[in-house]
């Protein structure tokens, strides 16, 4: 039978896992990781890597930073199993939300008519390629 005082004692035990040293170590790791993603800003990165590699790298760095903050600063590493009840459904909903946006928003230009394409805010080099004038009173 669970003792009502158990919750308190487990909670107190949870926080013994923290400690100043660990917090400082996480802080230093976060600073190092931030400077890692900031590296992509400098010219040598552009010379050696493509944009896609840069984006993947930055997202990987961000996810690592997020995990460090969640696990140590938010103590999720030391929490009981309830953490899965709260985090997994929320994470699934987030992914679902984003996926739902893809057909309506991300692929919205796939079925544009010619006229719509001409009137859309297109890149300048694309605009230059369009020969037909677009100012015909919207017929």
């Amino acid at each position, binding site marked *: *039978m*669970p003792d009502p005082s*158990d*919750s308190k004692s*487990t*909670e107190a035990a949870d*926080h013994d896992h*923290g*400690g*100043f040293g660990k*917090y*400082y170590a996480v*802080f230093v790791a*976060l*600073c190092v990781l*931030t*400077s890692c*993603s*900031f590296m*992509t*800003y400098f010219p040598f990165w552009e010379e050696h890597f493509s944009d896609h590699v*840069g984006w993947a790298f*930055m*997202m990987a*760095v*961000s996810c690592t*930073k*997020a995990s460090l*903050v969640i696990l140590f*600063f*938010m103590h999720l590493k030391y929490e*009981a199993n*309830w953490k899965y009840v*709260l*985090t997994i*459904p*929320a994470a699934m*909903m*987030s*992914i679902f*939300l*984003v996926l739902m*946006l893809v057909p309506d*928003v*991300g*692929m919205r*230009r796939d079925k544009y008519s010619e006229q719509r394409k001409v009137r*859309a*805010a*297109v*890149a*300048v080099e*694309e*605009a*230059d390629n*369009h020969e037909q*004038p*677009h*100012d015909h*009173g919207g017929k």
Partner: protein
Amino acid sequence: MSEEHPSHLQLSYQPSLPMRNGKTFMWLFLSTEIMFFSALIGTYIVLRFGASAWPKPHQVHLVEWIGAFNTFVLIVSSLTIVLAMEFAQKNKPVATRRAILATLLLGCVFLGVKGFEYKAKFAHGIFPQKPHSRMYERPDVYYKQALEMRLRLKVSGEDDTDAKSAVDADDTVTKTDPAKDAAADQGQEDAAATGKTVQQEMYDFLKNSDLSDKDRKRLKEDFDFVVDAVKSRGTTDEAALAATMLAVSEKIMPTHQGDSDEHHVGLNDAFGDLKLPVVIPGGNMWASTYFLLTGFHALHVIVGLIVFAILLPIKFGPHNYGVIENIGLYWHFVDLVWIFLFPLLYLF
């Protein structure tokens, strides 16, 4: 006998999760926040990669190192609030208060830097919507018209609301073909008459400014180029017009990063009152997403700061450290959102 309950089975009712209610509810709240921000960030990613044009960070005056500095500020504040909780647990109320104060100040620094960044955007006509936004998607006849309108208004000294109605009125005139030539002629005469005055004003400004002779000469030539381009008779060749208008926009606000040793100053930078429109493809969508994402994040920071200000006078110890843990969870989440926003907005 058969209906007798088994006496060895003792069920007990546990009314809640084995932790403080405050913490439970903070985590429930955070799980809704995760969905809120992931919807916003997800929309941004989908819009950004589905867009045909998206401005480079320097085109919209984003300064990467300022964003990196703000990231650092938030990381330090995350550390200070987690230290505050540790101090409270170890019964050190003075150190706890200092750590909360440090977090509060760091949050203020973050907001101050954000405000400075917003101000720089507004100064360059980057707003989430019209009539304040001076960004045009394409270097077309509408852009030329807006330039002409602005140069004319600059002289007459009317305010921006009048400018909007005047532009609307002009749109209706030029959309009907027979009236177009007449309107263009009229506009040309007006521009010729007023352009001279704006030029005079510009020359006076340049004469009195503390720019170097080289810059002064270049800006004068740039301005003459803009006025000439606006005054020139409308061409039916869209590509030629686009090329000219792009060159005009480049002189008003240079979009390329200075490859030479000097910082390249555009007309809008040198002469702030000009407020000429510029061509930034995808700029309006960028502004909408940027201000929405950073604005919601800043609102969360403000809420956190209000709570820190309320907590400041309270004496914390092992009996009430949970309050700091709760607000700490919230603050770490705010930091977490920025961890994703910084690369997405500044470095992508």
